């Protein structure tokens, strides 16, 4: 157990509304990541963080922003949700730059 929680675990929202997903860790790891998982695509990196206020884009960052004001929290925001952002979102942490440990996921449905 890597001490990662995600909230909410499930969310249904309408197209055009803003949505924020939260990832919380209890062990003060430096590196945190947001992925999305879709059928036929595996997991794809959205954004990652290598410290407080230090973030960078991943493979599929369009339409997403992130913030990390505290070591333990990493927020993912969909500024204006679209149906293509319906997915399962996973947060992950890593102790170093190798193994990553994942949270339980958030299932987001955009109608």
């Amino acid at each position, binding site marked *: 157990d890597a001490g990662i929680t995600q909230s909410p675990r499930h969310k249904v929202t309408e197209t055009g509304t803003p949505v924020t997903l939260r990832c919380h860790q209890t062990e003060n790891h430096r590196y945190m990541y947001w992925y999305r998982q879709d059928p036929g695509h595996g997991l794809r990196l959205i954004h*990652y963080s290598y410290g407080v206020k230090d973030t960078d884009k991943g*493979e599929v960052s369009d339409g997403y922003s992130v913030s990390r004001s505290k070591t333990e929290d990493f927020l993912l925001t969909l500024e204006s949700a679209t149906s293509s952002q319906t997915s399962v979102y*996973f947060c992950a942490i890593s102790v170093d*730059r*190798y193994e990553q440990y*994942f949270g339980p*996921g958030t299932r987001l449905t955009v109608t």
Partner: protein
Amino acid sequence: DQQVKQNSPSLSVQEGRISILNCDYTNSMFDYFLWYKKYPAEGPTFLISISSIKDKNEDGRFTVFLNKSAKHLSLHIVPSQPGDSAVYFCAAKASGYALNFGKGTSLLVTP
């Protein structure tokens, strides 16, 4: 462009037999490889990894083999158990932070 490929979407194996899951990659800069196991409605769980300087890593019933010249790795599970039924993701990383995931292989171990 999928840099990590798992060409078998599914695999069925009898309990007690060996399960072999395969993964191919195209990026010669990858220097670390990982396998994750995922049950439905849960986050991926780290299983085993291997550095590019090795050709084999073993952990209990799980062994990962790396063939750098063929850009191929495989995960062997011996003996297979019904609880091993899950989706297995192969992942690889180069010098940065991102993990590149394959699309996954669904393993079913039948009694």
